[in-house]
């Protein structure tokens, strides 16, 4: 077997997932790790098959790229959970499952008689992961919620946006509220599987997206918890108590870069001096003298002296401006490579499509081709978060058509 044919870490684990907007990413990750994930849709298809974008913009339930992306590697079956016969079929699926993953409104499955409380007696080893906006029992558990309100009410949005606070704070794109909840649902499933190895028992896990957003805001929470301080958003950099200086510049080809921390050591000043000279920019940069001065430093500049000591302030300011000046005179990629090869940590602000073309992602095999034999074509998908040679993470196959694997239900009944 080649590395790519090896089973994944979760090979032999069967997951039954009730199709849902928020939990779809969790199912995708579990399937990528090798679990057999069976996604259960209503007979007329899950509503996310109606989500844009569509292949060639043709709004067909088999052409939703949203569905394709989040349901790759899964098997698909259809069940009408309001129908008694189908409820029994669902019970047989659950009987054959290690993990149930669902993001139904609290109470719905209990009303149908197919919730964990009802089924657990017969299946004490079953792990049931519920992903809901506010958890299953809190005072807000019945609130209406979508990705936007998870991120706005849960903390992330407060820290994101622009220096100009007349502009609304910003939500990050890409369903990050749902996905953050999903990441914790995956960690929960794995933790419960490891616990079952030692205790022999399954359990119920209640994952809250609101809680997940709340505990993934870095300083937004810790600063308040520890010191009672409220961070303030800033364009493209960390929300902070005191304003910080820019880290953003527009390179010569119109692509933004992150210019990182300005040099503070003699080594880094010397690197910037050499870089400017090699680009022939030295004579165009008025504060070059301060860079040369920095290259003679015996000790690193201390940030506490910036604004206090005039020479330190001048050197620090010159270094920051020099990095920006360089970035504005070359392409973003030249800047990124030129700085990083010299040991300066900077970044290039790629749009998603540019990520897939970058040599790093190419060499690590991140973009993967997924066969759509039904269309006679293959398409490039996002690949693995890590490289695990003995238990590879991979996209196994395209997302299922509606009811494509319904024969599984009879086989397991």
């Amino acid at each position: 077997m080649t590395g790519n044919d090896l089973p994944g870490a979760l090979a032999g684990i069967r997951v039954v997932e009730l199709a849902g907007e928020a939990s779809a990413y969790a199912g995708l990750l579990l399937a990528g790790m090798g679990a057999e994930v069976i996604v259960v849709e209503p007979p007329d298809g899950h509503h996310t098959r109606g989500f844009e974008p569509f292949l060639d913009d043709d709004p067909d339930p088999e052409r939703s790229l949203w569905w394709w992306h989040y349901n790759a590697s899964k098997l698909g079956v259809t069940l009408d959970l309001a129908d008694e016969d189908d409820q029994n079929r669902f019970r047989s699926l659950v009987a054959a499952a290690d993990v149930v993953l669902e993001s139904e409104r609290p109470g719905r499955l209990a009303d149908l008689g197919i919730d964990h409380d009802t089924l657990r007696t017969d299946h004490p080893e079953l792990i049931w992961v519920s992903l809901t906006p506010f958890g299953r029992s809190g005072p807000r558990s019945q609130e209406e919620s979508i990705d936007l309100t998870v991120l706005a009410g849960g903390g992330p949005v407060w820290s994101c946006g622009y220096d100009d606070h007349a502009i609304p704070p910003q939500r990050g794109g890409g369903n990050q509220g749902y996905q953050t909840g999903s990441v914790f649902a995956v960690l929960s499933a794995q933790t419960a599987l490891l616990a079952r190895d030692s205790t022999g028992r399954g359990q119920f896990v209640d994952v809250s997206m609101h809680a997940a957003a709340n505990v993934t805001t870095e300083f937004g929470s810790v600063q308040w918890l520890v010191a009672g301080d409220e961070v303030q958003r800033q364009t493209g950099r960390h929300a902070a108590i005191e304003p910080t200086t820019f880290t953003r510049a527009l390179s010569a080809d119109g692509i933004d870069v992150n210019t990182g921390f300005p040099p503070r050591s003699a080594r880094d000043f010397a690197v910037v001096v050499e870089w400017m000279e090699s680009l022939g920019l030295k004579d165009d940069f008025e504060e070059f003298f301060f860079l040369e001065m920095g290259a003679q430093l015996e000790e690193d500049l201390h940030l506490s002296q910036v604004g206090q000591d005039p020479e330190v302030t001048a050197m620090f300011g010159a270094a920051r401006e020099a990095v920006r000046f360089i970035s504005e005179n070359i392409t973003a990629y030249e800047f990124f490579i030129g700085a990083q090869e010299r040991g300066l940590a900077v970044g290039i602000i790629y749009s998603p499509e540019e990520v897939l073309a970058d040599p790093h992602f190419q060499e690590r095999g991140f973009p993967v081709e997924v066969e759509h034999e039904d269309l006679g074509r293959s398409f490039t998908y996002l690949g693995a978060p890590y490289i695990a040679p003995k238990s590879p993470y991979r996209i196994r196959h395209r997302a299922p058509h509606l009811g494509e694997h319904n024969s599984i239900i009879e086989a397991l009944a």
Partner: protein
Amino acid sequence: MKSEALSHIRICDFTGQLAGAGATRWMAAFGAEIIRIEDPVRLGKWDVLRGTSPFVDDRRGHEFGGCFNNHNVEKLGVTLNLRTDRGKELLAEIIAVSDAVTENFAAGVLERLGFGYDRLKEIKPDILYVSNCGFGHVGPYRKYKTWGPIVQACCGLTFTSGLPDMPSAGWGYSYMDHHGGNFMAMAIMAGLIHRSRTGEGQWIDMSCTDAGATMLGPVALDYTVNGRPLRRDGMPYSNRSQFPAMAPHGIYEADGHDAWLALAARDDRDWQAIAGLMGINDSRFDDLAGRLAYEDELDEAVRTWSSGRDRFKAASELQAVGVAAAGVAKPEDRIDDDPNTEAWGLWPTVTHGEMGRVRVDGIPAHFSETDWVLERGGPLLGQHNRQILGSLLGHSDAELTDLAAEGVI
């Protein structure tokens, strides 16, 4: 008291910051024994968060970093001077009784300390080794340096946040430090599950930028399938909803200083409820196509209603008619004044050896049988030397005294 979930797992842990420490934090909360190895000579400062703000009071130094405490709750702290042969021997003894070795140094650092994967395997043939850095240990950028904002820039996440014709807003914090840690935990647990089934260890190499790129969502396929790049006029516009299309969908001015209200109409029913509540009567907005075609006008109509209203009262009014809405929560709102985070127990108080009682981030999942426990703060430097080197490995008190005197621990 400890959670039983992962109490059978022991990790020899070199992680730091949040992108690494966050991984073993999750596992510590569920009872894994996380032995954090630190350098006594540099006072553990290979994790700079040991000594950086926020601080609980005026005290400063390597025992007072607020983030360090938050990210290292329930872990054990051991000091080893790995420049010494004795320090290396003791580390080998810890590795020999561990299930995994974890680190998020720059690529190559652990190898230079003498503990690359080949050496780890010599010590323990079935060891799981999980490395995590910005670009991983494989690839053309393996020597490059990163931290959260650079990872987010290079993986496409920064670009996806913001307004058209403006620089990207990006993420106002290290979103990918949180998820770097979370994906690393995922990689560790995947490796442990594989090991428990097959008896086989391995080296799993994680790159935070790759983990971040898995989070881009369907926008990537819109390019690879339809050829439509996100870098185009009018995009991104991340407070609006692209996939699926919804309008209104945004963050609107509310009454008060820097106060905002988020709301959306998922469908026509939601829109009718919103229009009824806000008194908006405009046939252009009757269906989604119209609302998208006149989205600027629609947003202005919503803003006219929201701007004079308290963000939380307005959200309640919208919730009462079945519409998804939320006030944009400031830290105080969600930490001190949200009945749901309180009912969840989301901000547990831990006890730290120097800082005393401090609130920390809780865990966003509750387990019915083996729930998490967060009671102990981050370890003081060398706090558990006696427990690990003495009780676990069997070195005598006299030996430990000598090791301390020789600068080994």
